[in-house]
C-alpha cells in the first residue's frame, strides 16, 4: 500500500467539503498520538496519589500458608501493605463474569487478591501502596509469603481428567459443556459421516496468545471531594460496563461512579474486562480517601492481563462425490485459565455459529464445547474471540478435504459457496446471513494474485528435491460481528444488550457535537463519526466534535468490541443526525413559511422547491433553536437528539484472503512472498481506516500462524513473558499486503456498513497455514500446528521423510 499517495489524495478530497463519506481522510486522532501529546492514563499528573504494586505468585498452583507484609511496611515510602486475607471483607461481590453460558456452569469465586490459594503464575497475593511506583515495586519484594506448591495443570485433556482439581469447592476442573442444539436433527450428522463419499477428521490446536496491546493497562482511582463520588480512569475499552461492574463489585452506588478513558493504546479485547487492579485501586482510594494509581509493567501484562485463543478443536467434515459438504461435527475443549473473567466462557461459543464458513451447510451439524480450568492466566476475548478459531478450523479442514479429493482448494470452496442469489440466507444455526457475494470476493483475490499462473509456477518449482517450495493459501470467511441484537444475546445468556447510543447536538454557533457510547482505543472513531455527521449535515468534519469514553459525558453506551462500533454505534449517529435534521426542517419551514415537504436540505442549507430565493442555512436554524424566540408551537428549543439503536441482525462481513509462501526445506523457514486481502465490509466510511484495520488484522493473524505462542513449561511457568520470547512480528518481518475491493452493502442498516475490526485476523491465520501445508504436502507433511516455527516445519519435514 502506498501511504504517501493516500495522504495526498485525502487532502484534496477533504477540500471538496461535501460527500465526505468514503474519502480517505487522515485521522483526527493522529497528530496528538504521533507527537506524543496524547494523554494516556499513566501520563496523568495526580498530586498526592499513592502507587499500587501487586505481589504475584511465582507458582502456578500453591496453597498460601502465610503472608507477612511487615517487611514491606518497613521500606521507605511505603504507607500500606495488604494480603489477600486483609482485604477479604472489602468486596461486596466476586469479580464479575457476565456470561454464564449454561445454568450449571461452574464459576469459582474470584477476588482481586487470592486468599488461600494461588492458581496461576501472576495471580495477585498481596499489595503495597507507596509514594512512588519505584518504592512500591521495591517493597513488594520484601513481602514474605509461605507457599505450599501443588502440581500445575497445563494440559487440557489432563485437566479434564480431574487428576488435580484446581478449585476444591467445585470438585472438578470442567466449567461447562455447551452444545449447539439444532431442532430435529439428531442422528443426521452421524448419518452423513457414515454415508458420505468423503470424510476428513482433523485436530487443531489454537495456541494461547497474548494480546500485547502497545499500552499496558493503567489505572487511576480518584475520590472526589465530599460525598463519596469516585472517578476511575482506566486504560479500558469498556468504560460503561466497567462503571456498572465496579459499582456492583464494590457496593458503590452507581450514580457515584464515573469512568473515564484517557487515550487508550490498543486493546484487542484484552481491555474488555474488569480487572483486579481496577477494583483494588477504587476500593483502596475510597477507604483511604486518596488517589491510588497503578501502572502495569510489560512483564505483568503478559501474565496479569487475559490471554486469548487456547482451544483444542476436533472437526469432522463429510462431503459427497462432488465435495459438497453433507455434515459436520465439532468438539471443542476451551482453556478457561484459572478463573472466568468477564466474558471468558462465551468466547468458544461465538465460534459455534461460524464453523460453517461461507458454505451451504446442511443441518447435519453437531457442535459441543467443553471448557476447563487450568493453572494458567485466564483467557478471554482476543481479536475475533471464537470466530478466528472457527474460521481456522473450517478453512483448514476444507483444504484437507481438497487434498483428499485431489482437487483445487479454491474449486472446492466454489462448489460450496452460498450463492449470491440465496441471500438473505438462513444458516444451519438459525441465524440469517444478511448479504454476501463470495464468488466475487474470491474472483477479485484470484485475479490480483494471478492464481492460475502461480499454480503452474508452483508445479514447476516443487520438484521432489527442490530446496525451496512454494505454497499457495486460500481462505474465505464470514464474520459475525456488530454484537448484536439484544434478544439474540439474551438467547446466549449474555448479561448485557447489544444496543448503542448516540446523541447529536447542533450548538448555537452551528458547530456539532456527537456523543457516542463507543469507546475507541485506536480505531479512529473521532474521525469516522465526525465524517458520518459531516456527511449528513453537509459540513466540514472539522466542525464536528466527537465526545466519548467518559461516563459523565456519554452516560449511555456499551463500548467497543466485537467489531460493533460502526454497524451499531455509527449507525446510531446517522439516525440521530437524521432526527436533528427533521427537527431543523420544522424550524426552517416555520421561518420560511413553507411546507416541510417542499424543503430540500443539502450542503448545510434548506431551500424551498420552486423558490430559489428562499434559503436558510443550518447555522441560522441552530441559532433560532437556541434563542427559541420564534419556534413552531409545541417544538422544544435546541437541536439535540438522542437515539438508542438495537440492531435487527448481526453484521456479516466476508472476504477472501490469498497468499504465497516459500519454504526453505533445509531450515524450515517460511517466507510470505505475497498477501492479498479482499474484505467486503459493505460501505466504507473511511477506506484509509478500513485498510489500516485490515493490515493490522492480517499481521495479527499471520503472527498466530507463524510467530506467537504463550508457551508454558510443565510447572506452569510462562516461558514467553517478554517481547524477546513472545514473538510479535515487526514491520520488517511481514509482507506487503495488497487489498482488493468488494463492496456489498449491508441491507440491515441505513448506512449499509459492516464491522471490519476483526476481519483481517479471521482471514489470515488459515490463509497462511493453508499455504504452509500446501507447500509441504508433496513431501508427505499432513499438517503443522500453529505457530509454524522453523523448528516445527523442519521437524515435520524430517518426520515425513523418515
Amino acid at each position, binding site marked *: 500500500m502506498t501511504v504517501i499517495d493516500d495522504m495526498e489524495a485525502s487532502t484534496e478530497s477533504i477540500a471538496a467539503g461535501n460527500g465526505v463519506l468514503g474519502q480517505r481522510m487522515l485521522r483526527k486522532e493522529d497528530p496528538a498520538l504521533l507527537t506524543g501529546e496524547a494523554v494516556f492514563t499513566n501520563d496523568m499528573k495526580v498530586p498526592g496519589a499513592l502507587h499500587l504494586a501487586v505481589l504475584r505468585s511465582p507458582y502456578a498452583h500453591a496453597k498460601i500458608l502465610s503472608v507477612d507484609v511487615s517487611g514491606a511496611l518497613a521500606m521507605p515510602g511505603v504507607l500500606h501493605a495488604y494480603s489477600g486475607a486483609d482485604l477479604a471483607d472489602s468486596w461486596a461481590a466476586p469479580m464479575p463474569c457476565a456470561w454464564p453460558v449454561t445454568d450449571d456452569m461452574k464459576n469459582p469465586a474470584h477476588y482481586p487478591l487470592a486468599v488461600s490459594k494461588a492458581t496461576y503464575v501472576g495471580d495477585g497475593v498481596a499489595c503495597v501502596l507507596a509514594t512512588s*511506583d*519505584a518504592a512500591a*515495586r*521495591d517493597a513488594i519484594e520484601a513481602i514474605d509469603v509461605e507457599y505450599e506448591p501443588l502440581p500445575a495443570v497445563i494440559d487440557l485433556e489432563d485437566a479434564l481428567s480431574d487428576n488435580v482439581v484446581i478449585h476444591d469447592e467445585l470438585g472438578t476442573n470442567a466449567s461447562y459443556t455447551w452444545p449447539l442444539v439444532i431442532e430435529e436433527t439428531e442422528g443426521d450428522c452421524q448419518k452423513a459421516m457414515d454415508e458420505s463419499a468423503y470424510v476428513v477428521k482433523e485436530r487443531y490446536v489454537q495456541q494461547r496468545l497474548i494480546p500485547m496491546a502497545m499500552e499496558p493497562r493503567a489505572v487511576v482511582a480518584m475520590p472526589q471531594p465530599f460525598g463519596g463520588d469516585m472517578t476511575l480512569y482506566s486504560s479500558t475499552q469498556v468504560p460503561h460496563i466497567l462503571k456498572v461492574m465496579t459499582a456492583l463489585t464494590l457496593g458503590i452506588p452507581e450514580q457515584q461512579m464515573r469512568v473515564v478513558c484517557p487515550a487508550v493504546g490498543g486493546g484487542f479485547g484484552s481491555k474488555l474486562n474488569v480487572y483486579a487492579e481496577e477494583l483494588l485501586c477504587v476500593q483502596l482510594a475510597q477507604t483511604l480517601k486518596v488517589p491510588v494509581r497503578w501502572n502495569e*509493567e*510489560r*512483564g505483568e501484562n503478559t501474565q496479569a492481563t487475559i490471554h486469548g485463543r487456547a482451544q483444542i478443536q476436533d472437526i469432522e467434515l463429510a462431503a459427497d462425490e462432488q465435495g459438497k459438504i453433507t455434515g459436520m461435527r465439532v468438539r471443542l475443549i476451551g482453556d478457561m485459565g484459572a478463573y472466568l473473567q468477564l466474558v471468558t466462557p462465551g468466547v468458544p461459543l461465538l465460534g459455534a455459529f461460524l464453523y460453517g464458513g461461507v458454505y451451504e451447510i446442511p443441518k447435519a451439524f453437531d457442535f459441543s464445547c467443553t471448557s476447563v480450568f487450568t493453572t494458567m492466566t485466564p483467557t478471554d476475548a482476543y481479536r475475533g474471540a471464537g470466530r478466528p478459531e472457527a474460521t481456522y478450523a473450517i478453512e483448514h479442514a476444507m483444504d484437507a478435504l481438497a487434498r483428499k479429493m485431489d482437487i483445487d482448494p479454491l474449486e472446492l470452496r466454489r462448489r460450496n459457496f452460498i450463492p449470491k442469489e440465496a441471500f438473505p440466507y438462513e444458516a444451519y444455526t438459525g441465524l440469517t446471513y444478511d448479504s454476501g457475494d463470495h464468488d466475487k470476493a474470491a474472483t477479485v483475490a484470484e485475479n490480483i494474485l494471478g492464481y492460475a499462473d502461480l499454480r503452474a509456477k508452483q508445479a514447476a518449482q516443487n520438484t521432489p528435491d527442490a530446496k525451496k517450495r512454494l505454497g499457495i493459501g486460500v481462505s474465505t470467511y464470514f464474520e459475525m460481528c456488530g454484537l448484536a441484537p439484544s434478544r439474540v444475546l439474551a438467547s446466549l445468556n449474555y448479561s448485557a444488550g447489544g444496543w448503542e447510543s448516540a446523541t447529536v447536538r447542533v450548538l448555537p454557533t452551528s458547530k456539532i457535537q456527537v456523543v457516542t457510547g463507543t469507546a475507541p482505543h485506536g480505531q479512529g472513531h473521532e474521525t469516522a463519526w465526525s465524517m458520518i455527521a459531516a456527511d449528513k449535515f453537509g459540513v466540514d468534519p472539522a466542525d464536528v466534535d466527537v465526545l466519548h469514553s467518559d461516563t459523565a459525558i456519554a452516560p449511555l453506551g456499551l463500548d467497543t468490541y466485537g467489531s460493533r462500533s460502526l454497524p451499531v454505534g455509527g449507525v446510531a449517529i446517522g439516525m440521530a443526525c437524521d432526527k436533528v435534521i427533521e427537527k431543523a426542517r420544522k424550524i426552517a419551514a416555520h421561518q420560511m413559511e413553507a411546507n416541510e415537504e417542499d424543503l430540500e436540505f443539502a450542503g448545510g442549507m434548506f431551500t424551498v422547491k420552486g423558490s430559489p430565493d428562499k434559503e436558510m442555512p443550518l447555522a441560522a436554524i441552530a441559532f433560532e433553536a437556541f434563542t427559541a424566540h420564534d419556534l413552531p408551537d409545541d417544538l422544544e428549543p435546541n437541536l439535540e437528539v438522542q437515539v438508542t439503536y438495537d440492531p435487527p441482525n448481526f453484521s456479516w462481513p466476508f472476504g477472501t484472503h490469498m497468499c504465497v509462501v516459500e519454504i526453505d526445506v*533445509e*531450515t*524450515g*523457514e517460511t517466507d510470505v512472498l505475497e498477501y492479498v486481502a479482499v474484505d467486503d465490509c459493505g460501505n466504507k466510511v473511511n477506506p484509509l481506516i478500513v485498510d489500516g484495520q485490515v493490515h493490522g488484522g492480517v499481521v495479527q493473524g499471520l503472527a498466530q500462524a507463524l*510467530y506467537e*505462542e504463550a*508457551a508454558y513449561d510443565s510447572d506452569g511457568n510462562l*516461558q*514467553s513473558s*517478554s517481547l*524477546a*520470547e513472545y*514473538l510479535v*512480528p*515487526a514491520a*520488517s*518481518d511481514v509482507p506487503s499486503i495488497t487489498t482488493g475491493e468488494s463492496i456489498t452493502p449491508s441491507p440491515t442498516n441505513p448506512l449499509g456498513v459492516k464491522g471490519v475490526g476483526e476481519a483481517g485476523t479471521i482471514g489470515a491465520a488459515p490463509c497462511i497455514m493453508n499455504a504452509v501445508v500446501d507447500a509441504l504436502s508433496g513431501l508427505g507433511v499432513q499438517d503443522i500446528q500453529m505457530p509454524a*516455527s*522453523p*523448528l516445527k516445519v*523442519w*521437524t515435520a519435514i524430517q518426520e515425513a521423510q523418515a
Partner: protein
Amino acid sequence: MIPAAFDYVRAESAEEAISLIGQHGDESKFLAGGHSLLPLMKLRLAQPTVLIDIGRLTDLSYIREDGDVIAIGAMTRHMDVENSPVLAEHAPLLAHAASHVGDPQVRHRGTIGGSIAHSDSASDLPATTLALGATYVAQGPNGTREIAAGDFYKGFLTTDLAADEMLTEIRVPKMQGAGWSFQKFNRRAQDWAIVGVAAWRRNGDSGIGLVNMSSVPVLASGVSSALSGGASIEDAAALATEGCDPTADLNASIEYREHLARILTKRALEASSS
C-alpha cells in the same frame, strides 16, 4: 521494569573508570551502551550496586588502520562499525555483522566493546571477531595487555578480563580480498541469532565463528582444517558442530541447532568461495 536501586558514577577517562571499579569492587559494573545491562537490570536479573558510566569516553570511539590491523575503540557504536569505510575495505565481514545487531535503536547506542565484554554467545560480534582472529586490548591498573580472541571467552557470560580491567580496543587483522559471509538465522529481524555463522576464506585459509552454539562463541577450527586439507565444502561443513555444546529453547532443539549450524556453515562457505 524498574531496576533495583543503584549508585551511578561517571568516568571521565579510562584510568578513572578502572580506578572506580577497583574502588567499588565486585558489585559494580561498567555501563557502555547499556543495551545488554539495562534490560537485565530492569528485569532485576542483574542488580549491580554501582554503575560506572563510560559512555563519555569518546576517545575510545574510533576505527583506524594500524599497520596490518584495524584498531577499533571499545566505545565505537555498532552503527559506526556498520558504516565504516575503513572496515568496508579491510574487514567487511565485521561491518556487515554489525548491521545485523538488534535494531537501529540498539545499533545507535550499543558498542562493540560492550558486546564483546558482555560475551553473550548469542551475540553476533563475539563470534565474528573470533572468526577474524581478533585481539582484544584490556587496560587495568597496571597498564594494558592483549588477549587473543581465542583465549578470551571462558564460559557463560565470563571472560578473561579481570574485575578491574576494561576492554579498550578490538584489533582485527586486515583481510583484503577474502571471501566472506555472515549467515544469521532468526525468526524476527531484531532477534538474537538462533544460530549464526561468520566465515571468511582467502587462499587456503579460513575462519568460521559460530553464534549461539555453546555457552561461548565457537571457532569451528575443524572445518578450517578440513578445508585446508582439501575437503569439499559439504564435507567440511559437516564438522561445524565439533566442540559445540548447544542448548534447547523455544526456538530450537539441540538437534535442530546442530543441523542449522551445518547448513549455515555450508551456505557461508559457499558464499565465501564465490
